[in-house]
């Protein structure tokens, strides 16, 4: 669209023709109030708050439905307009309860703000307000009807945005209400409920306190919280979640998760886990004291010093007596990059073993190798919201990667993107798909081969040969294609699919995985046969030379436990993982192994430990994480809990107790001689600005061995692909990385012998691995889900 010129409040503005006046004004810093308008959702023109005066038009016009045109002259704040808005507010307040002092939205309510602005304080009415009791639509969604101003944001968010359609508008006139999809008379408890994904997007969109969150309601006032934007710990999408934190007697607790900070990679979106599932931190079974197994076999609380000393000295003994190769190390998918990197460095340089692995939820090794030597071929999460065409093979983003699903739906809705879905299951995203191809069971490999030109693979790829060939033709005709791959595809199948994709010049790839830092764990080298950045052993790479690690691959996850069963594993160090449950390991295998576990809870794995070190969770630490797509983001410490330590700190302290040279493990203290501002003549008062400058230039002093940024320097220096921009990271922005080893290095080791240890978690919207078990809210939602399902097997939600 060509640009047009128009005048708003005397200011000459320019915007592409067709831009909505309300958006054009916003871009120019002119805020036009609106309740019903919500960017990206369909237009309503219902609240009449955005009325403006457009010259030559007889009536006030709604800025939300008026496209800018050449020569248009607009007034947005005149007495006439202010009066119109004031009258509208007065009408709303006629029925709206004035319970602002106890309303959850008080202090962040759009109606309150507008009333303040337009001074609609007078009341004309003698009649009583219509009162209705509050309704509990689900464990996490409450509806207070009298507060509802009928802006229909929730209805659109649920239908257009989420494709769930659990909310509707019923009755008419002043009796109009927002109604959930399970009416009272259809419900066993005779109360209305929502049968939905419980994402809470309706609550986020609500401009007033009509929809409130089960986890937050009546807990605190918005201004009593600190708001910390960090990254959600659950799936691999890497959404930013804003945690509302409040001081308590033993630290500070999270009382709310929402999407206040819409600047994140997830824009408007947040799913139920990002919004509600932070409560595991407060679970009653949380371990807050180090525990050591005593001679009588029981775990008893000890001081940190005793516990670390015990763990460190025993590990040293075992390393020295039985060799580093007798020790195994297992890391987690919810550690920060810094912790994961530190852990593998600790394993390789302090313990001296390559017996290190993690719970792999997608085959990032093959992904990196298949794409090695290419540039600009990996997709960012942002691409899922903007690519003109998307091929989704495998996966179920709606349940496992909700932001990806949201972005794809938005892409279809707002950009008319063409989405092609090939899956062995009838996943819900088929509803947005231009074409859905039902693959035969286990047909992914055959499908990849078929796409790559092997016509003979057709019959084992899909039952419908015509649909298959039409699908392939459509996909191949795309010039700019985003290829999203589910974790079902691994090894040769994944390689084949990527090879096919690479024949499309404009294709980009992403491999979906399960947890916040599944990708980071692989990137950081929690692998027995790869150094960080997928650098193979023996490659001529600074990593190899600096580490002086054992040159032969170590034991993988299963190898470690096989060794334990054979009595060959002297010690096992587990950091934030639960392999016993995940890989169904016989606990007896570890009876002769010294086990150290860093955990929040007494998991199946922790229960076998000789030393349990109470760990902080992702919301209680700082660092960085990398999502499924390779987008790096900062994790900020939000909550705090007395008695727990970050995994980073614990690894360093164990290393110290083992006699390691800590400054070599964590290069802290480097940069002390850096410019502290003297050379630039910085004076007091300039300190803040100066700190930013220092940060931007990688010159900030790292004074603590527990400072994750000390090791980020090393990651940046050594790990291929992690050439990050520090200022970008620290400002809370995401940056896309392509951590693939240089192509020359990849070919060195033969990969055919690699075991497929990928074990997708298959989490639903209401589970999150071991962590999910300790979230009361997720448990409530699972129970709620089960009740709903039992109550109305016939009645289904939108899918």
């Amino acid at each position: 669209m060509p640009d047009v010129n128009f005048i708003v409040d005397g200011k000459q503005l320019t915007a592409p023709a067709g831009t909505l006046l309300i958006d054009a004004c916003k871009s120019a810093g002119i805020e036009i109030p609106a309740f019903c308008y919500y960017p990206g959702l369909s237009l309503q023109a219902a609240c009449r708050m955005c009325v403006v005066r457009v010259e030559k038009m007889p009536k006030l016009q709604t800025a939300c439905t008026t496209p800018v045109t050449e020569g248009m002259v607009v007034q947005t704040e005149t007495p006439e307009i202010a009066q119109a808005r004031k009258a509208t507010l007065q009408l709303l307040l006629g029925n709206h309860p004035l319970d602002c002092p106890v309303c959850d939205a008080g202090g962040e309510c759009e109606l309150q703000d507008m009333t303040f602005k337009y001074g609609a304080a007078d009341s004309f009415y003698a009649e009583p307000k219509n009162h209705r009791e509050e309704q509990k639509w689900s464990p996490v969604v409450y509806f207070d009807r009298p507060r509802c101003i009928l802006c229909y944001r929730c209805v659109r968010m649920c239908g257009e945005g989420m494709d769930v359609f659990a909310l509707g508008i019923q009755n008419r006139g002043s009796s109009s209400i927002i109604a959930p999809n399970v009416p009272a008379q259809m419900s066993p408890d005779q109360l209305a409920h929502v049968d939905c994904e419980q994402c809470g997007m309706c609550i986020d969109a609500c401009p007033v306190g009509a929809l409130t969150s089960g986890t937050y309601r009546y807990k605190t006032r918005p201004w009593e919280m600190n708001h910390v934007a960090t990254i959600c710990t659950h799936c691999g999408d890497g959404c930013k979640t804003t945690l509302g934190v409040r001081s308590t007697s033993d630290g500070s607790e999270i009382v709310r998760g929402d999407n206040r900070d819409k600047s994140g990679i997830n824009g408007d979106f947040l799913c139920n886990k990002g919004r509600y599932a932070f409560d595991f931190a407060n679970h009653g079974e949380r371990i807050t004291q180090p525990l050591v197994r005593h001679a009588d076999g029981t775990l008893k609380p000890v001081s940190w010093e005793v516990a670390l000393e015990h763990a460190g000295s025993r590990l040293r003994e075992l390393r020295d007596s039985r060799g580093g190769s007798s020790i195994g190390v297992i890391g987690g998918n919810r550690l920060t990059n810094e912790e994961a990197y530190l852990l593998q460095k600790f394993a390789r340089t302090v313990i001296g073993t390559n017996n290190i692995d993690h719970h792999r939820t997608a085959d990032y090794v093959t992904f990196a190798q298949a794409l090695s030597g290419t540039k600009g071929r990996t997709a960012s999460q942002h691409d899922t919201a903007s690519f003109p065409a998307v091929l989704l093979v495998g996966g179920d983003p709606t349940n496992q990667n909700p932001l990806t699903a949201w972005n794809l739906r938005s892409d279809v809705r707002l950009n008319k993107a063409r989405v092609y879905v090939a899956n062995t299951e009838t996943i819900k995203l088929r509803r947005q798909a231009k074409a859905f191809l039902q693959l035969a069971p286990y047909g992914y490999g055959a499908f990849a081969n078929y796409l790559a030109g092997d016509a003979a693979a057709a019959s084992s790829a899909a039952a419908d040969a015509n649909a298959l060939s039409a699908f392939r033709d459509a996909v191949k005709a795309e010039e700019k294609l985003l290829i999203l791959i589910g974790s079902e595809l691994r090894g040769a199948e994944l390689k084949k699919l990527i090879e096919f994709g690479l024949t499309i010049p404009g294709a980009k790839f992403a491999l979906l995985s399960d947890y916040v830092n599944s990708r980071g764990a692989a990137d950081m080298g929690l692998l027995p046969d790869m150094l960080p950045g997928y650098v193979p052993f023996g490659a001529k790479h600074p990593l190899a030379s600096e580490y002086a690690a054992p040159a032969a691959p170590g034991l993988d996850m299963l190898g470690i436990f096989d060794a334990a069963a054979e009595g060959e594993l002297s010690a096992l160090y587990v950091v934030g993982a639960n392999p016993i449950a995940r890989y169904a390991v016989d606990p007896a295998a570890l009876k002769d192994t010294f086990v150290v576990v860093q955990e929040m809870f007494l998991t199946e794995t922790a229960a076998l430990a000789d030393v349990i070190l109470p760990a902080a969770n992702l919301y209680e630490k700082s660092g960085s994480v990398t999502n499924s797509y390779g987008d790096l983001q900062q994790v900020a410490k939000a909550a705090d809990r007395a008695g727990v330590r970050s995994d980073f700190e614990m690894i360093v302290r164990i290393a110290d107790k083992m006699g390691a040279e800590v400054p070599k493990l964590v290069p802290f203290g480097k940069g002390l001689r850096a410019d502290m501002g003297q050379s630039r003549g910085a004076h007091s008062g300039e300190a803040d600005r100066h700190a930013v400058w220092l940060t931007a230039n990688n010159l900030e002093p790292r004074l603590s061995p527990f400072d994750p940024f000390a090791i980020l320097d090393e990651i940046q220096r050594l790990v291929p692909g992690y050439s990050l921009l520090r200022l970008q990271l620290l400002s809370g922005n995401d940056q896309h990385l392509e951590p693939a080893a240089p192509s020359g290095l990849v070919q060195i080791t033969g990969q055919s012998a690699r075991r497929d240890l990928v074990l997708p978690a298959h989490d639903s919207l209401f589970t999150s691995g071991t962590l999910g078990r300790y979230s009361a809210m997720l448990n409530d939602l699972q129970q709620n889900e089960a009740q709903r399902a039992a109550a109305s097997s016939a009645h289904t939600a939108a899918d």
Partner: protein
Amino acid sequence: MPTLVSHPDEVKVISRRFGQGAADIDKYVELDGYKAVQKAIAEGPEKMSGWIIDTMKASGLRGRGGAGFPTGLKWSFVPKQSEKPKYVLVNGDESEPGTCKDHVIFLEDPHAVIEGTMIAGLAIGAKTGFIYLRGEYRYLLKIMEKAVADAYAKGFLGKNIFGSGLDFDVITQSGAGAYEVGEESALMESLEGKRGVPRIKPPFPAVVGLYGGPTVINNAETIASAPHILLMGGEAYAKIGSERNGGTRLFGISGHVERPGVYELPMGYNLKKAIYEVAGGVKDGKKLKAVVPGGSSCPVLTADEIDVGLDFDQMGKAGTMLGSGGIVVLDETVSIVEFALRTINFYQHESCGWCIPCREGTDWIKKTLTRVHAGGGANKDIDNVQYLAENMLGRTFCPLGDAAAMPTLGFVKKFRKEFEEYIAGKRVDTPLITVQDLVGAH
């Protein structure tokens, strides 16, 4: 069953076949039925559309639903080329209080509606027409359904109508109780199986209408006028009416008159004459108090304001509207407070609830007037009602807000004294309205 009335001043164009059994297709054909559509087809495929639209333009016919938009012009807005199918939509959701003219058309001359629909279809290049009747008009829907079936049986509808090589289908549709559906875009929503909430305009129906296709939507009377206009010629039709207000229209005169009924009068006919001569004057020799001249949404005229011509322009100049042609006559005994309350009750009940000013405004005016009517009013309530109505006017999503605000403003401005006396207790009528339980749709 409606009683037909007659008066010498009537000019019978659209009512020409009333009372002659024209619901029967043979009778209709005998009375020049389906000749207009054949006349149009005889113009040939090249000239047909242009000829129809030119004739309609020449006739000066303006929309009989109430807005008075020139029909020929409306039809000419439909793009010639369209990827999506075009439609003709007949608005028979007659719901404006005081209005029952379409009722008589459906009853007495259903084929005129069908033929008019076909003509509009030929004019814009549509192959399908929908005739939407309000749900309450079930017996009229049956009459329309039979008429449509008869027209199909005769081959007048369906494939290759009258040898033109063109196809045309007519589908009848029932509403289910909603005044708001009379608004053209709300009617389309309803016909698409949705809540009757209006659409954002632009785009206008002529560009994006029913099922997203270009659509002509006209009131039933407008559509039924088309065959007559084509037969008699546009200029001849125009000549009957007043300046810029071609032809005749059906006026329903109701309330306190001696001979209520639906009369066909030339546009511009004097309102006073219509009441005192055509409808026989005020009932029982009482004095005239006020007239609501075009359905309940039109601002009231006092007894000394009624010497005015019944056309869109003259009524506009008089500060009111011609509206739907429903003239409601109030004698001296009527309490304006009560009448205003009954009027706003209706709009409160029928507001779709979509936008704030209408949804809340009608509700608060109703609540306030209910209290005033019950004897609990204060003078500031009159100001409040006026303030509410003024702040609804022109600010709502669709014209329903205006339709509620305009008469309310008329009542409180022209009869403020009566409100004040009522509040002061000088004039307490025995309330006719005892229990008003019309809250909400259910």
